[in-house]
């Protein structure tokens, strides 16, 4: 795929990614598929949550890449997807097989509902507006009353396929959905709409001159991003088997942003996994570091927000310097 900074590097056509990259993806998927066979219950659970978080990281990465915007509020859409799934199970008795598509579709609508009034904002101002979303989440959930289960939250216990080990399903569903999301996003990059969003990100006036208003670009980027975030929420609810208000706070939103920084804004499998693993495992592994964890996160957040209105270019340059311009896994 083309890269602004690697004109001289050999590249494949837009239709087929180069062979080594495809091999890496298949190798990664193979290793992930074997985890439950070789690792214990704790690691199977943790890697499952990592993959759900990887999808969440992709949702923030998508907005950064195709909208050129930073969100500090995606925990809102994550919570929405998670509660959608839990409520669909509790009220309708349907499994995540229905809950997840419902969450993805409703999440897109919710993304538009937020993006429309905020379409004139950008940069730090939009980031602050999204932060308001994140801050509202726990209160909103408690206001919903008994349907959302209050402080204790809700269980997501119904298996997707009855009769098969639920623990395995809680691992493999995030794996399958993560692989699918990565594949769909790779396709999107080549689509008509993908070209429009990328041009609108860099030159909104050029996109307008060719028939696509800023509002269209913003709504499209937000709808897709929010839909991915809602999907990730559904996966998190299923992988962790429970949802509660305190898993969707402002820090959750900030972690997602940090995960995006760790993934270098990549929308590929390896990058997303790195971001998802970072935000899942670092708090666990470095719990002993205590106060340093939020400081590290805060520094990473400041870095991404101060990259300014068009962080994607800076990220591209960074990636080129660190990894020879490789972007999508």
């Amino acid at each position, binding site marked *: 795929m*083309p*890269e602004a900074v690697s004109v001289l590097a050999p590249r494949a056509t837009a239709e087929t990614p180069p062979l080594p990259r495809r091999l890496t993806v298949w190798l990664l998927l193979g290793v992930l598929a074997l985890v439950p066979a070789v690792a214990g219950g704790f690691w199977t659970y943790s890697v499952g949550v990592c993959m759900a978080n990887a999808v969440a990281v992709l949702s923030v990465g998508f907005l950064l890449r195709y909208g050129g915007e930073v969100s500090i509020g995606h925990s809102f859409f994550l919570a929405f997807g998670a509660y959608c799934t839990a409520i669909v199970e509790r009220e309708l008795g349907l499994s995540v097989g229905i809950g997840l598509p419902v969450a993805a579709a409703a999440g897109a609508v919710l993304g538009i509902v937020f993006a429309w009034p905020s379409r004139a904002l950008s940069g730090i101002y939009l980031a602050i507006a999204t932060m308001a979303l994140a801050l509202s989440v726990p209160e909103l959930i408690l206001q919903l009353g008994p349907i959302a289960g209050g402080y204790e939250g809700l269980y997501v216990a119904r298996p997707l396929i009855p009769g098969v080990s639920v623990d395995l399903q809680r691992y493999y569903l995030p794996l399958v959905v993560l692989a699918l999301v990565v594949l769909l996003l790779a396709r999107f990059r080549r689509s*008509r709409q993908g070209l429009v969003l990328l041009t609108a990100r860099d030159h909104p006036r050029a996109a307008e*001159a060719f028939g696509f*208003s800023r509002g269209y670009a913003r709504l499209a980027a937000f709808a897709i991003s929010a839909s991915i975030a809602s999907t990730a929420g559904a996966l998190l609810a299923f992988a962790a088997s429970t949802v509660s208000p305190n898993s969707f706070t402002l820090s959750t939103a900030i972690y997602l942003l940090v995960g995006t920084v760790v993934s270098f804004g990549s929308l590929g499998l390896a990058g997303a996994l790195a971001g998802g693993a970072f935000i899942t495992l670092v708090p666990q592994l470095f719990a002993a570091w205590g106060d340093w964890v939020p400081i590290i996160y805060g520094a990473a957040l400041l870095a991404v927000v101060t990259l300014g209105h068009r962080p994607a270019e800076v990220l591209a340059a960074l990636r080129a310097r660190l990894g020879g311009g490789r972007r999508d896994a």
Partner: protein
Amino acid sequence: MLDAVTATAAELTVEAVSLSFGGHRVLKEVSMDFRPGQVTGLIGPNGAGKTSLFNCLTGLYRPQQGRIALGGQSLERMPPARRARAGLSRSFQHVALCPELDVLENVMFGRARLGRSGWADAFLPLPGGRAERAEARAAAMDVLRRLDLAAFSDVTPAGLPPGTQRLVEIARAIASRPRVLLLDEPAAGLNPAETRQLTAVLRGLVSPELIIVVVEHDMDLIMQLCDRIHVLNFGQRIASGTPAEIRADPEVIRVYLGDSDD
């Protein structure tokens, strides 16, 4: 390739357009027309209002008075994104190509508005979307070949010299199948060799149904390229005519006297 959608090629007309910024009038009842099959130049000394008029044509500015129309269709209240649908396309003075897309993809973006594929096609390998993408790719490649840019199709714009980037912008505009092509100082930042190439390319684009409008400082380019020229000074049109008529116009000579360009 470049044919307009309509059978009868329509004129782009500006009627008594006035524009002011906070009491400062930059355009005073300007009227002029731009004809299909011709390259029309818009010139004038600095501050004459040619960029303001250009911005009224693209929709960046809305004139307080007057009418801008393409055929029977009024444009003056139309936002820029809708003007694209009406058949207007443009290039930018500061190249506005997407640095992440390669040259071919930038040109494919030019015809994105003509596409019919929906959001499902964007994510899924459906036959309709695939066929449309292949068609868009072929059409974009066609435009690149016509402009002698095919060799650059798979590089990103940042690696190209300014003249080539400008031509890619023109290719992108042409790919949208416009009825009106608006060029904002196309020779800005180009060396003489690049300017000559640009002139040849633009002359090659002339077709009976296409209106080409060029705002430009470079007098040599304007005189060689244009079939007709409108001259603005202090927000008013002071002359219109062929390059030869403009060169001989006493008012124009007076305005440009001492100007190193002419």
